[in-house]
């Protein structure tokens, strides 16, 4: 239990990287003169499949690319997009940097936090939504903006935010119904 990476992450367990991810990774590695350089795109591929990066996934990547585990842990922890905690089923990330905050992003942040009853950085108790406050998303001309499951929502108002939250609820119900 002296592994700092597993202490940080709490939950862990066996993982299976599927054939599609493995094939994509093999293609990516060919683009670089050294395998190490493929680390960021490879971590993205693994995270795309698993939704986050448990220690077992990092170990898998280290072995696949022939790198020391510590190297992979160290790089992963530098970049905010690599999730070392299991996120909720959906992710809402609202920008509160300067252009967005000039147009009321902080109100929207508080509005969402209140509706979800969590603070930025937390996940709802049912594991459904992870909510976070982020830095400039490069979409300042249509501020305020947020990312929901990698999709941009722009020129936000409280009504638009409510609409998205409602939709997230419904999508979940539908998915649940089909399972």
């Amino acid at each position, binding site marked *: 239990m002296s592994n700092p990476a597993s202490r940080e992450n709490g939950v862990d367990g066996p993982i299976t990287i599927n054939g599609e991810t493995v094939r994509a990774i093999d293609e990516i590695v060919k683009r670089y003169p050294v395998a190490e*350089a493929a680390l960021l795109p490879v971590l993205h591929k693994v995270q795309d499949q698993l939704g986050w990066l448990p220690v077992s996934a990092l170990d898998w990547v280290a072995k696949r690319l022939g790198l020391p585990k510590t190297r992979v842990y160290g790089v992963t922890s530098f970049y905010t997009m690599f999730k070392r905690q299991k996120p909720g089923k959906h992710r809402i990330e609202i920008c509160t940097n300067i252009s967005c905050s000039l147009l*009321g992003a*902080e109100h929207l942040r508080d509005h969402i936090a209140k509706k979800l009853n969590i603070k930025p950085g937390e996940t709802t108790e049912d594991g459904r939504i992870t909510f976070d406050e982020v830095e400039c998303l490069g979409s300042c001309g249509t501020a305020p903006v947020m990312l929901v499951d990698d999709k941009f929502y722009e020129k936000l108002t409280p009504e638009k935010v409510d609409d998205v939250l409602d939709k997230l609820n419904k999508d979940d119900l539908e998915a649940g119904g089909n399972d």
Partner: protein
Amino acid sequence: MTEKILTARFEKPDSYRLSSYVEDGGYEALKKALSKTPDEIIDIVKAAGLRGRGGAGFPAGVKWSFVPKESEKPKYLCVNGDEGEPGTFKDRYIMELDPHAIIEGAAIASYAFGAHVAYIYIRGEFKLPIERVENALAEARQAGFLGANILDSGYDLDIWVHPGAGAYVCGEETALIESNEGHRGMPRIKPPFPAIVGLFGGPTVVNNIETLSYVPHIINKGPEWFAAMGPEKNGGTKLFGVSGHVKRPGLYELRMGTPLRKIIYEVCGGMRGDKELKAVIPGGSSTPILTPGEIDVNMDYDSLAKIGTMFGSGAIIVIEEGTCIPRLAARLAKFYAHESCGQCTPCREGVPWIAKILDRVENGMGLPGDLDQVLKICDNIQGKTICPLGDACAMPIRAMIVKFRAEFERHVEEGGCPFGPTPTPWDSES
């Protein structure tokens, strides 16, 4: 005044597809370039006066000429699509709507200084831009505009997307190189400059997406055409991203040297609700703020430098009366504190202290002497760090305190913010 070069194809359906690009004369410039010598290309781009659109404004042709002709190690081009500077939202549109322009520009640049591999580093959050650029690369490869022996010229080039993963500092050229090598994005000490020792130890050019997108047009229409579009040494147009309190925020392609007042009051329709202007950040969050008395300035590198600020990435943030400047300063400092890579002490320690002190000033717990303390910390950062991120925090914060000092002092004296919560567009319009 509005001049459509980079944005000319943005509104066409399928503008991002190869068929549409070729229909509009796409890849003709690459053909033309491959029939010239690399030195001829460099001379054309130098004569055009094309300056880097990523922030520093360094002439692109000159940068390419620094790359040694003979090199034992392979040479590389890194295309900077990290677009993280708060206020900036331009490269994203080119990637989404005209990715072949980037590819053609990158191919011409690579040919000019002798690279056979290029990477387009795109910030990880940009899923659609990444998808569009990757598809465009596949199309170009299939059509023979990339790969071995391009258009029978004997020249080989491949280009790949390298996704970032959420770190503003990776936009800095040497951090970008580190990140492209699969490392933490820690900026390198210069010299050696990337043109001598860069990616994988080889000579490397880092150029912004927008910079490279102009290159095919310069090859097609000639350097004189480009140079004539702006003031001396500031040729061409620029993608200006205007955000904040104007009636029509958005992306505008305008000639270099367009007056700032004109951009705010004509191009963008003036202030929202016809309020008074309070301040303008002219070139992205790292550039020192301007007061209303300073907006009769032409938007080009040299004119802005003359009044003590910077052209930066052309991201204009417009701020109306009633906005609390200390609140903006505190928010900006928090951003830089979050993004410091932690390598040098002045930045790692100083920037978070600036953030903490400004936060307490904004929240009514400021102490007499706090503002001078912040200015002192700025002194201890500026010019004393490995990369310019430290300066990028110190410079705009200093300008905010110097130009709006009374407002900061009021916060300390009154033990709170006199402005109240930030007004919201939905409250004021309804």
